[in-house]
């Protein structure tokens, strides 16, 4: 057999035979589901932890610091497995939701640092102006600081989102069939390594490329309101 015939034969066996592409398609669905919910949870947790870290109350500072320390100091695979096999051991939720919670908890620690930096980047005069007008600390944060911080942290948040998508490639450890696991499954079934693994890489790459383009567009849209 010639080289190209060989390639097309491998391609057929890896992706078309026994409808294996469907495995990858549903894997994409799992990756996207887990990532989206995890990003959402990560932002909420991150915001709360950032507020803890910025607070003047010692006890809240400690909570924020311990949280960030523990999450950053342990591998995400370990965290995922602890959440899945220990914390949610007796709770019968969908696997992907539990995985998303684990990744959200993980992402929250990194997001909190991004948000904290974003809030600190806003000039102190903004807070003073808000408070001197009689707004409460909460109102000043909500209507003056956060809207400005959002713009500043948007690129870093995009990065975190991208990192998170790639991190989810470990959900196979708790038995979820995402893109990575689907590729791995095809590898085992066909005894081919190159095609399924490179295929997996290409799918991740395209997914993230698409996301990068969308984020770039949205950032431009955010910055449009700035008159300079």
């Amino acid at each position, binding site marked *: 057999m010639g080289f190209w015939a060989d390639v097309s034969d491998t391609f057929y066996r890896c992706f078309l035979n026994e409808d294996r592409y469907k495995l990858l398609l549903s894997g994409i669905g799992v990756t996207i589901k887990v990532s989206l919910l995890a990003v959402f949870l990560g932002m909420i947790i991150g915001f709360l932890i950032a507020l803890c870290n910025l607070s003047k109350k010692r006890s809240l500072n400690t909570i924020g610091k311990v949280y960030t320390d523990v999450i950053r100091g342990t591998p995400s695979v370990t965290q995922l497995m602890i959440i899945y096999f220990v914390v949610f051991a007796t709770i019968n939720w969908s696997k992907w939701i539990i995985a998303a919670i684990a990744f959200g908890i993980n992402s929250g620690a990194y997001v909190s640092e991004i948000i904290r930096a974003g809030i600190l980047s806003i*000039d102190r005069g903004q807070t003073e*102006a808000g408070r001197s007008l009689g707004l409460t600390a909460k109102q000043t944060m909500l209507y003056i600081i956060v809207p400005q911080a959002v713009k500043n942290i948007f690129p870093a948040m995009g990065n975190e989102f991208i990192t998170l998508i790639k991190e989810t490639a470990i959900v196979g450890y708790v038995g979820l069939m995402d893109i990575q696991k689907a590729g791995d499954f095809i590898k085992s079934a066909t005894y081919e390594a190159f095609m399924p693994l490179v295929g997996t890489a290409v799918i991740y790459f395209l997914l993230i490329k698409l996301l990068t383009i969308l984020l770039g567009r949205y950032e431009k849209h955010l910055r449009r309101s700035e008159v300079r």
Partner: protein
Amino acid sequence: MIKVENLYKRFDDNEVLSGITEEINEGEVVVVIGPSGSGKSTFLRCLNLLETPDEGEVYIDGEQINQKGVDVDRLRQKMGMVFQHFNLFPHLTVLENITLAPVRTGRMNMEQARSKAAELLEKVGLSEKAGAYPASLSGGQKQRIAIARALAMEPEILLFDEPTSALDPEMVGEVLDVMKNLAKSGMTMVVVTHEMGFAREVGTRLLFIDEGKVLERGIPDEVLSHPKQERTQAFLSKVLV
């Protein structure tokens, strides 16, 4: 209206205010001058508790405000503040800058706040800028908007922290004009400034602060023309070239 007793403020080991006792009455325009680092801005910022005094008491309308359990936010609504660097909210239009506080504090509904804003914009001569963002305004325009923003809360007192120090010289006049009109309308004002002409013309009383103490006080024209203290003389000889 405002009474300050024996005010002390330290930043680490640096004592910025060393026992200031002062009273500001309704309708007064008190001008505060002094060398940089003398504590005059800190004094002003202690009046609305942007800085917390270490010792001493601050009273507004007879109520001590620097003690536990006082609703500072409510008290600050009585006192507007205008900053050296304007501190307009860059993500909001001029109109939104002005209406934000009255609406969010529940003082006015949106409609009332908008009509108040329109009235104030006319007063500071910037009606046409309602929809503009701060980044598109000149320094003088920004400061006039900042004054309008402070006035929107209908404060009893306005505090000015070097309102013209960050402006290009040709824009100082337009801001001072707005302030003069305010003074004429009977607004109680405390103004930290280096504008001696303004002090003379509209100030009803002048305080010279140096090293955290009020060294000299009196009618602006008298103090500026015949300073009694040596340090006042030295300062004024440097400022009034």
